[in-house]
């Protein structure tokens, strides 16, 4: 007993002060890619190496519409290796209220060899909410106040794995650890949808989980929030839609907030969850 206490005292406080201080990421961390649409010479090499179809294009009548969909992107960075107009950022705290907010695109006229001649439309970058350190800290303060007002001092979350590879579950479990500590916001992971205000859903939603997900959603009392987690939860990820999967969570139940990443790291999850609470507060 005393040994347990002594060890805890010796270790001290290890909890991150995020969001009051910025996310502590390695300089080598890979966040989302960023495309310099104005300088983009050719979408084809990046689309060819993209394993999930996050970078894709359609050609019609001498024009090409090329896009980057963070709702599919696994942040692998293969595109940036073949295309000088794309670079990998360390940005990971990203959340969107609407699925289209994760998609940026532009239209180019084409040269005869199929490369881009010039930008004719866009770039249309509706830009999801991306963390700015100061704003995140403010958000954290707001949430504690809002959660108190809206959910009676606490927000209860039920996690639902609707078909994930378990990568997202690993990171969600880390939120209950001493470093990220979701509970310091008055947010708790609970055992039943009946107790929950929010569902955190990972995907892709498989055919075998579709009914269970719908029933879980129906069992959650309103007002309820649904947060789709990860590339697979947002858009089906590398699995997409096939005979066994329905794609992203919003193919089956309505989604309030999308958190991209593969998997989203704990900061990204915290950021997205806080944004979800803010959405409810604004409504």
């Amino acid at each position, binding site marked *: 007993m005393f*040994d*347990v206490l002594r*060890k*805890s005292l010796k*270790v001290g406080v*290890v909890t991150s002060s995020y969001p009051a201080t910025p996310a502590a*990421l*390695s*300089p*080598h*961390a*890979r966040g989302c890619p960023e495309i310099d649409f104005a300088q983009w010479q050719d979408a084809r090499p990046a689309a060819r*190496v993209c*394993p*999930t179809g996050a970078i894709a294009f359609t050609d019609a009548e001498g024009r090409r519409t090329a896009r980057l969909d963070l709702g599919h992107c*696994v*942040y*692998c*960075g293969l595109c940036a290796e073949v295309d000088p107009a794309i670079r*990998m950022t360390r940005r990971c705290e990203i959340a969107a209220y609407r699925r289209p907010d994760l998609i940026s695109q532009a239209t180019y006229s084409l040269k005869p060899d199929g490369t881009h001649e010039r930008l004719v439309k866009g770039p249309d970058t509706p830009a999801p909410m991306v963390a700015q350190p100061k704003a995140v800290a403010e958000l954290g303060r707001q949430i504690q106040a809002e959660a108190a007002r809206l959910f009676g001092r606490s927000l209860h979350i039920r*996690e*639902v*794995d*609707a*078909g*994930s*590879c*378990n*990568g997202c*579950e*690993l*990171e*969600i*479990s*880390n939120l*209950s*650890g*001493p*470093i990220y500590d979701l509970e310091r916001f008055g947010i708790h*992971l609970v055992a039943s*949808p009946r107790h929950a205000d929010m569902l955190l859903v990972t995907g892709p939603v*498989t*055919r*075998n*989980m*579709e*009914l*269970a997900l719908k029933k879980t959603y129906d069992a959650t009392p309103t007002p309820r929030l649904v947060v789709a987690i990860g590339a*697979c939860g947002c858009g089906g*990820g*590398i*699995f997409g*839609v*096939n*005979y*066994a*999967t329905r794609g992203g969570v919003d193919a089956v139940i309505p989604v309030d907030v999308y958190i991209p990443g*593969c*998997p989203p*790291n704990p900061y990204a999850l915290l950021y997205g969850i806080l944004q979800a609470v803010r959405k409810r507060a604004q409504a």
Partner: protein
Amino acid sequence: MNLLPSLMPMLDAVRERFEDRLDAVVAPRANEVYFHAHPDLVAGFCAYLYKAWDARLTGVFADDAVAEAGVFHLYYVYTLDAAGGFFILRVPVPPNRPEFTSLTNAVHAVNWQEREIQDMFGLKLIGHPNARRCALHDDWPEVHPLRKDFDLRAPMPPFQGERHKFRQVEGDGVFQVPVGPVHAGVIEPGHFLFSVAGEPVLYLQLRLFYTHKGTEKLFESLPITHGVRLAESISGDSSFAHATAFCHAVERACEVDAPPRARALRTVCLELERLYNHIGDIGAICTDVAFATANMHAMRLKDRVMRLNEHLTGNRLLKGMARLGGVRFDWAEDQLEPLRRLPGQLRPEFDSLMELIADSTGTRDRLERTGTLKPETARNFGVVGIAGRASGFNHDLRRDIPHAFYDQTQFKVPVFTEGDVLRRLEVRRVEVGESLSIIRQTLERLPAGPVFVPIDEVPAGRVALGYVEGWRGEIYHWIRTAPGNRLARCKIKDPSLQNWPALSEAILGNIIPDFPVVNKSFNLSYSGTDR
């Protein structure tokens, strides 16, 4: 053929015994021998290899080769740990008589694998004790997704919700407790039906494949390079191990060896994966017996490893690091430096955590003799990895059939015979120490040179087995290549698939409140099983 000398005696013996019944013997690689034969040979071949050579039947799968050879092929993979190689029996199944004889009564380990073949290929099982649906739940229409005439994107009718008919357990005071697929914790979906009389569990039925994502079929539609990223999403906690097993299979098909430095970096990554999972599991086992403080310390250490993963590979789960022919990123001095310090920093902290757990008699009380899997049962079920080694299974591919850089390192393989939760925790405890030692040894003799050899062209029509000892157990990827740098088949074998049924045995006689800790001590992957 240029065969491993240690395999020669077995090969000679098999040839002598079955000579007139083998259509061909092919050894595309020094430790991978294929025997082509008639389906009648399956049972005899299996019994002989098992009895005479202590071979383990580690995988059974099918391949639709109707277009190329006019038949389906069934493959039976035998791992010969002592000799360091694999014997693979291949038998044809004609499409006009789509059936095969079950081995399950003799080898329990193939129960689910055979049923999966029946579901996915429409080959009818003869003589199976429980030949019901497995991978495709009961409400699925009569489709066989891994047949070539089935389209990956074929739309399926909406889920009708037809219920699986579980076996009824009856008697005075017997009642049934259904759990799942949505669980109370942050874990993957699966359904457990407990039959209990009072407190002790009489019978446990498992129903999985809720996360079936069509992964094997999807491999056939992607260019091989994309397959590496898909392999990272077979089981997130084993991203690197699965992706490396996949790369290993492709490299073997191409007859390319990853360069020494790449093999060393792979070894480090595999051990980092083992470290963060083992430490996390030790903590989670403590949580399930209400020793939350230990879990908090474990999660703190686990996060340290995951942050190092991010520093070394850009991703906390090591995603993005694997590549065909080696690894993607070499490490600069600023990355190697914290890695070198890891063993020295983590070891004392980990030992202190383990001391805390050892000193907690209440914890030991809950773990010892809980969820016992007898060595005999484990052997019958073909249990591998951590769960196997806690129940007398003295095998580890890293030692027995080394891949990556493991032949250059020395380490202990912990083996216990008690088979309880405590021993599964002990296996992890010893392995954490050994992992740190392997990392240290690897860094001490880190070879110079490139970290990959480019693989631009994958020859068509090759078959190859890739293997990796992941943290959970042995992972196999078997591929058949197709023209245009694509795959005609990718069979994925996660260790969870054959360990799951053993969980039903380990829980018998225990009480339901102990199920979480027993389950956690196995920590099997649902996604790796369901794919």
